[in-house]
């Protein structure tokens, strides 16, 4: 492990000088020393069934030697997709249907743009009404006593925490008014009220003060875990682990994560979260010149996306391979149009597993979906591809080009130049060159793939020269990827993304102690997804929050 990293750091030094000014940022960040655990003994709590749970001491706020939580205690608004998933968890998968509902494939990785206003509340109230009318819950109640009992359970699960008598008393007012029509109607309106309530739309991450930080309670923890892996509320078993307090024990959280990750729907959601982290939904906004690329139809786009879903799913779940195989695997899944794109014979059945040619293809970065998404309509985009590689490895963000260059950039794009020539123009311009030295070389390595992601060795009768990037350090894309797959960055970055999504903390970086503490020295190139997620989701940064004002 150490040897691999050393090898890669050596590569870094070869082009370290290329990073300038605002774009200074490590290809591989320096590793900080491991964090010290608190010196006081952990709490042991006795569970209702006589078992015990070990609850670690919280990190002490203000003590620089421990890794303090980054995220403040808060109410976290569910995304539209999570609200919909939660609604269906309460009333059934077919509770709400329609074209304009949020789609999992287009889910944003970060919810930062979602803000409460009339438009949002009105939409969610309408969902609650339509779902409760269209798919009323089954309860068999014909009197208020029975309804109250049913609603108490229903509300607790909908609010993802125990409810108190005052809440039920308020809810029964909704019931009583509507029950004048019938008890069933009373329950239906009460259910609507629950699903339209802010306690349904907001997830609590409030906890209680403990040694200067906020420790989440077991129910809050159950929700954090559940939404992190399924975009939905806790299932029965996770709920039970919250109810008896066992979830306060990180060991139990690990078990729950493993249990959940065995479910197909959860695996699909986690796969989708990674795809969202990579922005693959943007593929559906990609457009190609039909005269140049007549085969780029919506069907092909969908096939490309599905191939990547299947490849990721195969590596992470079917084979349980290390996450680094997402970069190195040659195994993929194609239908006939994709087979043609990759230069393979048509498969016997759609999305059959195939081995892609090892000299041309290696994992995610060489998938048609990624390469097509990161191209313009008529040509590739060295910049888009370069930025994608940086994001894939969680390298420092580069600033947007200055406003004053807008016209110059637009002129550059209009000129009849190859992508390589454009990169050369940027490299020579002192204002552009600083940042683009850390962007373009990655994109240039991927010039062997055309705007559809087809492998090519020449363009317009000119040979494609990829060796020039990074002063000839790499033979080409597959050589570069092979070395990246052996380095720690990608694994660290996947781990960071998992924690980022769970906490909705987009500034989290691999160098942060929260990530390192959770990884606990594991070799990121060897980590399997199940292990990685166990580590991230049982870590202290999941369980504790900063005191918020």
């Amino acid at each position: 492990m150490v040897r691999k990293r050393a090898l890669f750091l050596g590569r870094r030094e070869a082009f370290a000088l290329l990073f300038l000014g605002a774009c200074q940022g490590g290809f591989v960040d320096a590793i900080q020393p491991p964090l010290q655990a608190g010196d006081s003994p952990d709490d042991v709590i006795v569970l209702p069934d006589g078992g015990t749970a070990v609850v670690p001491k919280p990190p002490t706020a203000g003590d620089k030697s421990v890794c303090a939580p980054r995220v403040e205690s808060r109410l976290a608004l569910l995304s539209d997709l999570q609200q919909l998933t939660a609604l269906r968890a309460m009333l059934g998968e077919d509770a709400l249907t329609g074209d304009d509902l949020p789609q999992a494939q287009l889910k944003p990785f970060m919810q930062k743009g979602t803000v409460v206003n009339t438009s949002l509340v009105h939409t969610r109230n309408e969902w609650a009404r339509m779902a409760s009318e269209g798919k009323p819950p089954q309860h068999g109640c014909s009197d208020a006593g029975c309804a109250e009992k049913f609603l108490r359970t229903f509300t607790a699960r909908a609010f993802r925490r125990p409810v108190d008598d005052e809440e039920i008393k308020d809810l029964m007012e909704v019931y009583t008014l509507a029950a004048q029509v019938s008890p069933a109607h009373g329950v239906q309106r009460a259910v609507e009220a629950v699903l339209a309530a802010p306690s349904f739309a907001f997830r609590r991450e409030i906890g209680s003060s403990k040694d200067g930080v906020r420790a989440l309670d077991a129910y809050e923890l159950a929700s954090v875990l559940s939404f992190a892996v399924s975009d939905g509320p806790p299932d029965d078993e996770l709920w039970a682990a919250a109810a008896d307090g066992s979830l306060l024990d990180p060991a139990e959280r690990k078990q729950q994560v493993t249990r959940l990750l065995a479910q197909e729907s959860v695996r699909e959601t986690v796969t989708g979260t990674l795809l969202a982290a990579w922005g693959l939904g943007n593929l559906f906004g990609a457009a190609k010149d039909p005269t140049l690329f007549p085969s780029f139809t919506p069907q092909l786009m969908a096939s490309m996306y599905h191939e990547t879903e299947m490849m990721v799913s195969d590596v992470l779940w079917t084979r349980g391979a290390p996450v680094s195989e997402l970069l190195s695997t040659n195994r993929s899944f194609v239908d006939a149009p994709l087979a043609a794109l990759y230069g393979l014979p048509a498969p016997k059945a759609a999305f059959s597993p195939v081995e892609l040619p090892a000299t041309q293809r290696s994992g995610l970065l060489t998938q048609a979906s990624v390469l097509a998404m990161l191209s313009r309509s008529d040509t590739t985009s060295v910049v888009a591809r370069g930025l994608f590689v940086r994001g894939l490895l969680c390298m420092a963000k580069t600033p947007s080009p200055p406003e004053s260059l807008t016209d110059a950039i637009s002129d550059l794009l209009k000129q009849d130049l190859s992508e390589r020539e454009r990169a050369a123009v940027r490299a020579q311009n002192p204002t552009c060159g600083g940042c683009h030295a850390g962007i373009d070389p990655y994109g240039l390595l991927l010039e062997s793939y055309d705007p559809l992601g087809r492998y090519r060795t020449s363009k317009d009768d000119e040979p494609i020269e990829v060796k020039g990037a990074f002063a000839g350090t790499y033979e080409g894309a597959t050589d570069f990827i092979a070395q990246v797959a052996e380095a720690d960055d990608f694994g660290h970055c996947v781990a960071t993304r998992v924690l980022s999504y769970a906490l909705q903390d987009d500034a989290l970086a691999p160098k942060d102690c929260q990530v390192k503490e959770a990884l606990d020295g594991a070799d990121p190139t060897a980590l399997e997804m199940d292990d990685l997620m166990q580590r991230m989701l049982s870590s202290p940064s999941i369980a504790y929050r900063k005191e918020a004002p």
Partner: protein
Amino acid sequence: MNYQHSRRSFLAGVAGTALWGSLLNKLEAQAEGAAPPKRFLVIQRPVGTVYENWWPKGTGTNFTLSRIITPFAPLQSRMIVMRDLKLPFDGSVGGGHERGSVLLLTGQRTKQLYPGNGGDDPMAAGPSVDQLFVRQSPALQGTAIASLQLSCDNRADTPEVSTRNISYSGAKAPMKPYYQPKDVYQRMFGEMASTTAAAVAKARAEQKSVLDFALRDLNRLRKVAPTASRESLEAYEAAVRELERELDAETNDPSQCGVTGEPPSISTSSFVDPYSSSHVVSQRDDLKHEQICKLHFALIKAAFKCDITRTVTFQFSPGTNHVSFGDLWPPNPQLFKVHHTTSHDPDTADTLEFLTRVEIWYAQRVSTFLQELAAEKESNGSAMLDNTLVPYVTEVGARYHNWDNMPFLLFGGPGVKIKGNQVWTNGGKGLRSTNDMWMACASVYGLPNFTLGDNDQHTSAITGLFG
């Protein structure tokens, strides 16, 4: 006299009778002769204009209409052609149509981009002028629905937010438009169409109990939430209160408001045209596009007639308009061409003629609708357009994504004291921020001290537009 107030006092007098609100409107108007309310309707068309066919010849009151503006000739006395305007774009982020769409009504520097979405999708930095007007001006308040947002097409280049919305309740908080007239109808008339007054009252009482539960839940959350989360709870409460007011308002019989029945669900194309193609597509969208817009317009008129809302923002489409038009492509009218992507083609005579014809297409539809508003009599005998200020705007100046020389028109009448029949210029003193125009519009609603944007994004309200 306050229109809403007069309605309320009249209602008190007829309490217990099961009459529709709109019928009451007429009765009380006859009884009291109350002045009709002022209204604010922003109409946005996509992709800017073609300047050579847009600017009238001449300035002030001495001018001749241009080719694109000619459809508005019947409304000339009610119209101001605005020149010398620019969006306050300096120092903000976002792409051409994207940034323009956000700046158009918010007038505030965009500082952040939504992740993904093409990398040029800016977040609004504050509320839009329509929402600020409603919030600040009693002249626009007191209706069942505080404001309505409508759009005729949902397609844009990516899942981007910026081009799909022009109205914002606050930073990053788009007021998402309705695309289906059917959904607007249901929001306006709810369960009215098919049931009795007693059943409506019962359903509304139940809906209010649902909202009441949300408010009590909010109060409990407020006690445990950290300060940083309070803002979200306040916004939630404001939204619930707004929905509550809709339930408190009198119900309206659609037919009394001039709507014959629930509009059908209209399925629209989902085809997104790529850039470097010929932009010729196999289906024309403009017929359905027109159908949707007409239904939307009819509902806006109905909403004004029954005073269901006084503030509306209307988009023909996101700035990256994917609607295809038949009959308009000069070399071959049989071909169906896509609007926005064609605007990225080289400036051939055919391209410019096509873009001009699309602009005229939109101008004709708007003119027809505004003439309907001019023909619609209000309770005091004035015309609906007399009392409605209608800015006709777009998110870029022209196809090259400039944000200066914005081709805007203002329409209205004596009720909003518009000084029509003029081409307004800044008198050779350079460009003025569109925020200055919105600040002038604010005076119509009794907000003389209204400002929009940072201090360097506005100067003072433009004078000479309103009497």
